[in-house]
Protein backbone atom coordinates (compact mmCIF):
# COMPACT_ATOMS: atom_id res chain seq x y z
CA UNK A 1 0.00 0.00 0.00
CA UNK A 2 1.30 3.42 -0.91
CA UNK A 3 1.10 6.01 1.89
CA UNK A 4 2.15 9.57 2.30
CA UNK A 5 3.90 10.67 5.45
CA UNK A 6 1.45 12.52 7.66
CA UNK A 7 3.76 15.13 9.08
CA UNK A 8 3.62 17.55 6.17
CA UNK A 9 0.69 19.63 5.01
CA UNK A 10 -0.80 19.78 1.55
CA UNK A 11 0.35 23.36 1.31
CA UNK A 12 3.88 22.29 1.80
CA UNK A 13 3.52 19.50 -0.74
CA UNK A 14 2.27 21.93 -3.33
CA UNK A 15 5.07 24.35 -2.58
CA UNK A 16 7.64 21.61 -2.83
CA UNK A 17 6.15 20.24 -6.02
CA UNK A 18 6.55 23.62 -7.62
CA UNK A 19 10.03 23.88 -6.25
CA UNK A 20 11.00 20.46 -7.53
CA UNK A 21 9.82 21.44 -10.96
CA UNK A 22 12.00 24.48 -10.73
CA UNK A 23 14.98 22.65 -9.35
CA UNK A 24 14.97 23.48 -5.67
CA UNK A 25 13.31 22.27 -2.51
CA UNK A 26 11.04 24.85 -0.98
CA UNK A 27 10.53 23.10 2.33
CA UNK A 28 14.25 22.91 2.99
CA UNK A 29 14.41 26.54 4.09
CA UNK A 30 12.92 27.79 7.33
CA UNK A 31 11.11 30.66 5.66
CA UNK A 32 8.93 28.36 3.59
CA UNK A 33 8.58 25.50 6.03
CA UNK A 34 4.95 25.25 7.06
CA UNK A 35 5.08 22.00 8.99
CA UNK A 36 7.44 20.56 11.53
CA UNK A 37 10.04 18.23 10.04
CA UNK A 38 9.34 14.57 10.60
CA UNK A 39 10.81 13.12 13.74
CA UNK A 40 13.89 11.01 13.14
CA UNK A 41 13.09 7.38 12.67
CA UNK A 42 14.41 4.99 15.27
CA UNK A 43 17.73 3.30 14.65
CA UNK A 44 17.49 0.23 12.42
CA UNK A 45 16.53 -2.88 14.35
CA UNK A 46 19.53 -4.82 15.46
CA UNK A 47 18.73 -7.71 13.13
CA UNK A 48 19.06 -5.44 10.12
CA UNK A 49 22.72 -4.86 10.68
CA UNK A 50 23.90 -8.46 10.66
CA UNK A 51 26.59 -8.97 8.01
CA UNK A 52 26.04 -11.40 5.13
CA UNK A 53 29.59 -12.72 5.44
CA UNK A 54 29.89 -13.84 1.85
CA UNK A 55 33.51 -14.50 1.01
CA UNK A 56 34.28 -13.89 -2.63
CA UNK A 57 37.56 -14.50 -4.44
CA UNK A 58 37.05 -13.30 -8.01
CA UNK A 59 40.77 -12.89 -8.72
CA UNK A 60 41.51 -16.56 -8.10
CA UNK A 61 43.05 -18.22 -11.16
CA UNK A 62 40.09 -19.43 -13.24
CA UNK A 63 41.66 -22.90 -13.51
CA UNK A 64 41.94 -23.21 -9.74
CA UNK A 65 41.47 -26.79 -8.49
CA UNK A 66 38.96 -25.46 -5.97
CA UNK A 67 35.68 -23.60 -5.88
CA UNK A 68 35.69 -19.95 -6.98
CA UNK A 69 33.04 -17.64 -5.56
CA UNK A 70 32.83 -14.72 -7.98
CA UNK A 71 29.75 -13.40 -6.21
CA UNK A 72 26.83 -14.79 -4.27
CA UNK A 73 25.20 -15.44 -7.64
CA UNK A 74 28.12 -16.92 -9.59
CA UNK A 75 30.24 -19.85 -8.46
CA UNK A 76 32.49 -22.14 -10.49
CA UNK A 77 34.02 -25.52 -9.68
CA UNK A 78 36.40 -27.78 -11.59
CA UNK A 79 34.88 -30.17 -14.09
CA UNK A 80 34.44 -33.68 -12.74
CA UNK A 81 37.04 -36.09 -14.10
CA UNK A 82 34.43 -38.29 -15.77
CA UNK A 83 32.73 -35.38 -17.53
CA UNK A 84 31.94 -35.67 -21.24
CA UNK A 85 33.68 -33.38 -23.67
CA UNK A 86 32.01 -30.00 -24.12
CA UNK A 87 29.77 -29.73 -27.19
CA UNK A 88 30.95 -26.16 -27.72
CA UNK A 89 34.69 -25.82 -28.30
CA UNK A 90 36.81 -23.16 -26.69
CA UNK A 91 37.21 -21.47 -30.07
CA UNK A 92 33.46 -21.43 -30.61
CA UNK A 93 32.87 -20.09 -27.11
CA UNK A 94 35.34 -17.28 -27.72
CA UNK A 95 33.68 -16.52 -31.03
CA UNK A 96 30.12 -16.60 -29.72
CA UNK A 97 28.04 -13.71 -30.95
CA UNK A 98 27.49 -12.29 -27.50
CA UNK A 99 31.15 -12.32 -26.56
CA UNK A 100 33.26 -9.28 -27.33
CA UNK A 101 30.28 -6.96 -27.26
CA UNK A 102 31.52 -4.84 -24.39
CA UNK A 103 34.61 -3.20 -25.86
CA UNK A 104 38.32 -3.14 -25.10
CA UNK A 105 37.86 -1.14 -21.91
CA UNK A 106 35.93 -3.87 -20.17
CA UNK A 107 37.47 -6.68 -22.24
CA UNK A 108 41.13 -5.84 -22.83
CA UNK A 109 43.24 -8.33 -24.77
CA UNK A 110 42.57 -12.04 -25.00
CA UNK A 111 40.58 -13.75 -22.27
CA UNK A 112 41.44 -16.96 -20.58
CA UNK A 113 38.84 -19.63 -21.31
CA UNK A 114 38.36 -22.35 -18.74
CA UNK A 115 35.81 -25.14 -18.79
CA UNK A 116 34.13 -25.27 -15.38
CA UNK A 117 30.94 -26.35 -13.72
CA UNK A 118 29.15 -23.06 -13.14
CA UNK A 119 26.26 -22.33 -10.79
CA UNK A 120 24.32 -19.18 -11.57
CA UNK A 121 21.78 -18.35 -8.94
CA UNK A 122 18.86 -16.09 -9.56
CA UNK A 123 18.69 -13.93 -6.43
CA UNK A 124 15.88 -15.04 -4.21
CA UNK A 125 15.57 -18.41 -5.93
CA UNK A 126 17.14 -21.78 -5.32
CA UNK A 127 20.48 -22.38 -6.97
CA UNK A 128 20.25 -23.84 -10.45
CA UNK A 129 22.09 -27.07 -11.08
CA UNK A 130 25.67 -26.41 -12.08
CA UNK A 131 26.18 -26.56 -15.85
CA UNK A 132 29.36 -27.09 -17.84
CA UNK A 133 30.33 -23.66 -19.06
CA UNK A 134 33.24 -21.77 -20.50
CA UNK A 135 34.36 -19.11 -18.06
CA UNK A 136 35.95 -16.32 -20.08
CA UNK A 137 38.02 -13.98 -17.96
CA UNK A 138 39.58 -10.69 -19.00
CA UNK A 139 42.19 -9.39 -16.57
CA UNK A 140 42.92 -5.68 -16.12
CA UNK A 141 39.38 -4.67 -17.00
CA UNK A 142 39.01 -0.92 -16.65
CA UNK A 143 36.85 -0.07 -13.64
CA UNK A 144 33.35 0.91 -14.75
CA UNK A 145 32.43 3.26 -11.95
CA UNK A 146 28.90 4.57 -11.95
CA UNK A 147 27.46 5.77 -8.63
CA UNK A 148 25.44 8.68 -7.32
CA UNK A 149 25.19 12.24 -8.56
CA UNK A 150 26.42 13.27 -5.15
CA UNK A 151 29.83 11.64 -5.59
CA UNK A 152 32.58 13.93 -6.82
CA UNK A 153 34.97 13.32 -9.69
CA UNK A 154 37.69 12.97 -7.06
CA UNK A 155 35.65 10.23 -5.31
CA UNK A 156 35.46 8.31 -8.57
CA UNK A 157 39.13 8.79 -9.44
CA UNK A 158 40.11 7.56 -6.00
CA UNK A 159 37.96 4.44 -6.31
CA UNK A 160 39.25 3.73 -9.83
CA UNK A 161 42.82 3.97 -8.57
CA UNK A 162 42.18 1.72 -5.60
CA UNK A 163 40.61 -1.32 -7.30
CA UNK A 164 41.58 -3.99 -9.78
CA UNK A 165 38.92 -5.60 -11.90
CA UNK A 166 38.21 -8.61 -14.04
CA UNK A 167 35.44 -9.03 -16.59
CA UNK A 168 33.81 -12.45 -16.60
CA UNK A 169 31.50 -14.00 -19.15
CA UNK A 170 29.92 -17.40 -18.79
CA UNK A 171 29.13 -19.27 -22.02
CA UNK A 172 27.11 -22.46 -21.82
CA UNK A 173 29.32 -25.33 -23.04
CA UNK A 174 26.33 -27.21 -24.46
CA UNK A 175 24.52 -24.41 -26.27
CA UNK A 176 27.14 -21.70 -26.83
CA UNK A 177 24.77 -19.12 -25.36
CA UNK A 178 26.23 -16.44 -23.07
CA UNK A 179 24.66 -16.89 -19.64
CA UNK A 180 26.19 -14.03 -17.71
CA UNK A 181 28.44 -10.98 -17.99
CA UNK A 182 29.82 -8.97 -15.10
CA UNK A 183 32.73 -6.91 -13.91
CA UNK A 184 34.11 -7.68 -10.46
CA UNK A 185 36.47 -5.31 -8.69
CA UNK A 186 38.40 -5.74 -5.46
CA UNK A 187 40.99 -3.56 -3.73
CA UNK A 188 44.51 -3.59 -5.08
CA UNK A 189 46.90 -5.45 -2.78
Amino acid at each position, binding site marked *: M*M*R*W*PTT*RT*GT*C*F*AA*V*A*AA*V*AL*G*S*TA*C*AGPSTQVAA*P*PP*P*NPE*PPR*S*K*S*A*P*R*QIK*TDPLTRPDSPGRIVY*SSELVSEPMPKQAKAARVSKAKALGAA*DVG*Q*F*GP*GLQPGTPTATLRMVSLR*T*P*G*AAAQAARPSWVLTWAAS*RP*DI*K*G*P*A*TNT*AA*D*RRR*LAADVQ*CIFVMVVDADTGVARD*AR*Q*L*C*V*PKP
Partner: protein
Amino acid sequence: VLAVVALPTTATTPAAAAGVCGGTRGNYFNGYFQDGKPNYQFEGSSGYIVVRDGANCTGDTSIGNFSNAWLMIASNLGAPYNGWGQVGFERTAGFPLRWFSQFYDGYKALETRYSTFPVSNQIGVRHTFRVLWYESCLCLRATIDSTTWAESDFNPFAYPAESNWGPQAWSPQFLAEAGYLQSDVPGTPAARTRFSSLGAQRVSDDRLILMPCVLSGTTDNPTRWARQASSCNAFDVWTK
Protein backbone atom coordinates in the same frame (compact mmCIF):
# COMPACT_ATOMS: atom_id res chain seq x y z
CA VAL B 1 -2.69 13.58 -2.94
CA LEU B 2 -0.31 14.23 -5.79
CA ALA B 3 0.49 17.88 -6.15
CA VAL B 4 0.66 18.40 -9.88
CA VAL B 5 2.21 21.54 -11.20
CA ALA B 6 1.20 22.99 -14.53
CA LEU B 7 4.26 23.87 -16.53
CA PRO B 8 4.70 25.26 -20.01
CA THR B 9 4.88 22.65 -22.72
CA THR B 10 8.16 22.18 -24.46
CA ALA B 11 8.66 22.67 -28.16
CA THR B 12 8.98 19.33 -29.91
CA THR B 13 12.03 20.11 -31.94
CA PRO B 14 14.20 17.21 -33.01
CA ALA B 15 16.97 16.23 -30.65
CA ALA B 16 20.31 17.73 -31.46
CA ALA B 17 22.77 15.22 -32.84
CA ALA B 18 25.37 14.21 -30.30
CA GLY B 19 28.48 16.27 -30.84
CA VAL B 20 32.18 15.57 -30.85
CA CYS B 21 33.42 14.57 -27.42
CA GLY B 22 35.29 17.37 -25.74
CA GLY B 23 36.26 18.67 -22.36
CA THR B 24 36.63 16.41 -19.40
CA ARG B 25 35.20 12.92 -19.48
CA GLY B 26 33.22 12.44 -16.31
CA ASN B 27 29.78 11.76 -14.91
CA TYR B 28 27.18 14.36 -15.87
CA PHE B 29 23.63 14.16 -14.60
CA ASN B 30 20.09 15.19 -15.39
CA GLY B 31 17.31 14.28 -12.95
CA TYR B 32 16.38 14.28 -9.28
CA PHE B 33 17.81 12.97 -6.04
CA GLN B 34 17.33 13.30 -2.32
CA ASP B 35 20.24 15.16 -0.85
CA GLY B 36 19.98 13.51 2.55
CA LYS B 37 17.96 16.32 4.09
CA PRO B 38 15.38 16.38 5.57
CA ASN B 39 16.05 13.30 7.55
CA TYR B 40 13.75 10.80 5.89
CA GLN B 41 15.21 7.36 6.36
CA PHE B 42 15.11 5.19 3.28
CA GLU B 43 16.71 1.90 2.31
CA GLY B 44 15.50 1.42 -1.26
CA SER B 45 14.05 3.11 -4.31
CA SER B 46 11.54 2.23 -6.99
CA GLY B 47 9.96 3.65 -10.11
CA TYR B 48 8.84 3.24 -13.67
CA ILE B 49 11.25 4.35 -16.38
CA VAL B 50 10.35 4.43 -20.06
CA VAL B 51 13.35 3.06 -21.93
CA ARG B 52 14.89 5.51 -24.39
CA ASP B 53 18.18 5.71 -26.22
CA GLY B 54 20.79 8.44 -26.08
CA ALA B 55 23.48 8.92 -28.70
CA ASN B 56 27.06 9.02 -27.51
CA CYS B 57 29.36 11.80 -28.67
CA THR B 58 31.96 10.87 -31.27
CA GLY B 59 35.71 10.55 -30.88
CA ASP B 60 35.90 8.36 -27.76
CA THR B 61 35.13 4.67 -27.96
CA SER B 62 35.97 3.92 -24.32
CA ILE B 63 33.51 2.77 -21.69
CA GLY B 64 33.69 6.31 -20.30
CA ASN B 65 31.56 7.44 -23.23
CA PHE B 66 28.09 6.35 -22.16
CA SER B 67 24.51 7.48 -21.87
CA ASN B 68 22.17 5.92 -19.34
CA ALA B 69 19.19 6.24 -17.01
CA TRP B 70 18.70 4.53 -13.69
CA LEU B 71 17.50 4.67 -10.11
CA MET B 72 19.50 4.08 -6.97
CA ILE B 73 19.74 4.00 -3.24
CA ALA B 74 23.00 5.65 -2.21
CA SER B 75 24.78 5.75 1.12
CA ASN B 76 24.94 8.56 3.60
CA LEU B 77 26.30 11.37 1.49
CA GLY B 78 29.83 12.61 1.81
CA ALA B 79 33.13 11.39 3.17
CA PRO B 80 33.94 9.16 4.89
CA TYR B 81 30.85 7.24 3.72
CA ASN B 82 30.30 5.77 0.28
CA GLY B 83 28.33 3.04 -1.46
CA TRP B 84 25.33 2.48 -3.71
CA GLY B 85 23.01 0.06 -5.44
CA GLN B 86 21.59 1.02 -8.82
CA VAL B 87 19.79 -0.47 -11.80
CA GLY B 88 18.86 0.85 -15.23
CA PHE B 89 19.83 0.83 -18.88
CA GLU B 90 22.87 2.13 -20.72
CA ARG B 91 24.52 2.55 -24.08
CA THR B 92 28.28 2.79 -24.34
CA ALA B 93 29.96 4.02 -27.49
CA GLY B 94 29.66 1.55 -30.34
CA PHE B 95 27.62 -1.01 -28.41
CA PRO B 96 23.95 -1.77 -27.95
CA LEU B 97 21.62 -0.60 -25.24
CA ARG B 98 21.79 -2.96 -22.24
CA TRP B 99 20.41 -3.44 -18.76
CA PHE B 100 22.92 -2.96 -15.98
CA SER B 101 23.15 -2.95 -12.22
CA GLN B 102 25.95 -1.96 -9.90
CA PHE B 103 26.56 -2.48 -6.19
CA TYR B 104 29.35 -0.95 -4.13
CA ASP B 105 29.87 -1.66 -0.45
CA GLY B 106 31.92 1.48 0.03
CA TYR B 107 35.02 -0.43 1.05
CA LYS B 108 36.22 -3.02 -1.38
CA ALA B 109 33.72 -4.81 -3.58
CA LEU B 110 32.32 -3.22 -6.75
CA GLU B 111 30.16 -5.50 -8.89
CA THR B 112 28.47 -4.61 -12.15
CA ARG B 113 26.18 -6.96 -14.04
CA TYR B 114 25.33 -6.36 -17.70
CA SER B 115 22.74 -8.03 -19.87
CA THR B 116 24.33 -10.36 -22.42
CA PHE B 117 21.56 -9.37 -24.82
CA PRO B 118 20.70 -5.95 -26.25
CA VAL B 119 17.49 -4.28 -25.10
CA SER B 120 17.03 -1.92 -28.05
CA ASN B 121 13.69 -3.63 -28.69
CA GLN B 122 12.50 -2.22 -25.36
CA ILE B 123 12.78 1.41 -26.43
CA GLY B 124 9.47 3.09 -25.69
CA VAL B 125 8.45 0.43 -23.18
CA ARG B 126 7.87 1.34 -19.54
CA HIS B 127 9.64 -0.96 -17.11
CA THR B 128 9.64 -1.13 -13.33
CA PHE B 129 13.09 -0.74 -11.82
CA ARG B 130 13.74 -1.27 -8.13
CA VAL B 131 16.58 -1.53 -5.65
CA LEU B 132 15.06 -2.69 -2.38
CA TRP B 133 16.41 -4.10 0.86
CA TYR B 134 15.25 -7.61 1.79
CA GLU B 135 15.37 -9.01 5.27
CA SER B 136 15.42 -12.54 3.83
CA CYS B 137 18.91 -12.03 2.39
CA LEU B 138 20.03 -9.00 4.40
CA CYS B 139 20.87 -7.48 1.06
CA LEU B 140 19.76 -5.14 -1.67
CA ARG B 141 18.11 -6.64 -4.71
CA ALA B 142 17.88 -4.97 -8.09
CA THR B 143 14.80 -5.96 -10.04
CA ILE B 144 13.55 -5.17 -13.52
CA ASP B 145 9.80 -5.79 -13.66
CA SER B 146 9.30 -9.15 -11.98
CA THR B 147 12.84 -10.34 -12.68
CA THR B 148 15.32 -10.23 -9.86
CA TRP B 149 18.35 -9.03 -11.72
CA ALA B 150 21.13 -8.96 -9.11
CA GLU B 151 21.76 -8.67 -5.40
CA SER B 152 24.45 -7.16 -3.24
CA ASP B 153 27.00 -9.45 -1.62
CA PHE B 154 26.91 -7.14 1.40
CA ASN B 155 24.35 -5.83 3.84
CA PRO B 156 24.42 -2.03 3.63
CA PHE B 157 23.21 -1.85 7.22
CA ALA B 158 26.23 -3.87 8.39
CA TYR B 159 28.25 -0.73 8.94
CA PRO B 160 31.14 -0.78 9.61
CA ALA B 161 31.55 -4.57 9.52
CA GLU B 162 30.98 -5.05 5.80
CA SER B 163 29.69 -1.78 4.40
CA ASN B 164 30.81 1.81 4.53
CA TRP B 165 27.35 3.19 3.85
CA GLY B 166 27.30 4.88 7.25
CA PRO B 167 24.21 5.79 9.22
CA GLN B 168 20.95 7.08 7.75
CA ALA B 169 19.89 9.17 5.91
CA TRP B 170 20.57 7.39 2.62
CA SER B 171 19.69 8.90 -0.70
CA PRO B 172 17.18 7.72 -3.33
CA GLN B 173 18.31 9.00 -6.73
CA PHE B 174 16.56 9.00 -10.14
CA LEU B 175 18.78 10.19 -12.96
CA ALA B 176 19.91 10.15 -16.54
CA GLU B 177 23.64 10.47 -17.02
CA ALA B 178 26.31 10.80 -19.70
CA GLY B 179 30.09 10.59 -19.76
CA TYR B 180 30.39 13.79 -21.78
CA LEU B 181 28.42 17.01 -21.90
CA GLN B 182 28.27 16.61 -25.70
CA SER B 183 26.42 13.28 -25.50
CA ASP B 184 22.66 12.89 -25.47
CA VAL B 185 20.92 11.78 -22.33
CA PRO B 186 18.20 9.26 -23.24
CA GLY B 187 15.06 10.79 -24.71
CA THR B 188 14.08 13.40 -27.26
CA PRO B 189 11.51 16.22 -27.10
CA ALA B 190 8.98 13.97 -28.81
CA ALA B 191 9.89 10.82 -26.89
CA ARG B 192 11.03 11.76 -23.43
CA THR B 193 12.49 9.48 -20.81
CA ARG B 194 9.71 9.41 -18.24
CA PHE B 195 10.34 8.53 -14.63
CA SER B 196 7.08 7.99 -12.74
CA SER B 197 5.54 6.54 -9.58
CA LEU B 198 8.83 7.19 -7.87
CA GLY B 199 8.93 5.44 -4.54
CA ALA B 200 11.18 4.91 -1.58
CA GLN B 201 11.40 2.05 0.91
CA ARG B 202 11.19 3.13 4.54
CA VAL B 203 13.74 1.87 7.03
CA SER B 204 11.23 1.75 9.86
CA ASP B 205 8.96 -0.90 8.37
CA ASP B 206 10.54 -1.83 5.00
CA ARG B 207 7.41 -0.56 3.22
CA LEU B 208 7.46 1.16 -0.12
CA ILE B 209 5.87 4.61 -0.15
CA LEU B 210 5.46 7.24 -2.81
CA MET B 211 8.52 9.47 -2.82
CA PRO B 212 7.80 12.45 -0.58
CA CYS B 213 8.44 15.93 -1.92
CA VAL B 214 12.08 16.03 -0.96
CA LEU B 215 13.87 15.62 -4.28
CA SER B 216 16.29 18.19 -5.62
CA GLY B 217 16.90 18.63 -9.32
CA THR B 218 20.17 18.79 -11.17
CA THR B 219 20.98 19.32 -14.84
CA ASP B 220 24.67 19.54 -15.64
CA ASN B 221 24.15 20.75 -19.20
CA PRO B 222 20.95 22.83 -19.31
CA THR B 223 21.84 24.11 -22.75
CA ARG B 224 21.57 20.63 -24.18
CA TRP B 225 19.46 18.64 -21.71
CA ALA B 226 16.00 19.29 -20.27
CA ARG B 227 13.98 17.99 -17.37
CA GLN B 228 10.43 18.70 -16.33
CA ALA B 229 8.62 17.51 -13.21
CA SER B 230 4.89 16.95 -13.33
CA SER B 231 4.55 16.07 -9.63
CA CYS B 232 6.68 15.20 -6.64
CA ASN B 233 7.23 11.72 -8.00
CA ALA B 234 7.14 11.96 -11.77
CA PHE B 235 9.34 13.80 -14.25
CA ASP B 236 10.73 13.65 -17.77
CA VAL B 237 14.27 14.09 -19.03
CA TRP B 238 15.42 14.42 -22.62
CA THR B 239 17.95 15.95 -24.96
CA LYS B 240 16.66 19.16 -26.53
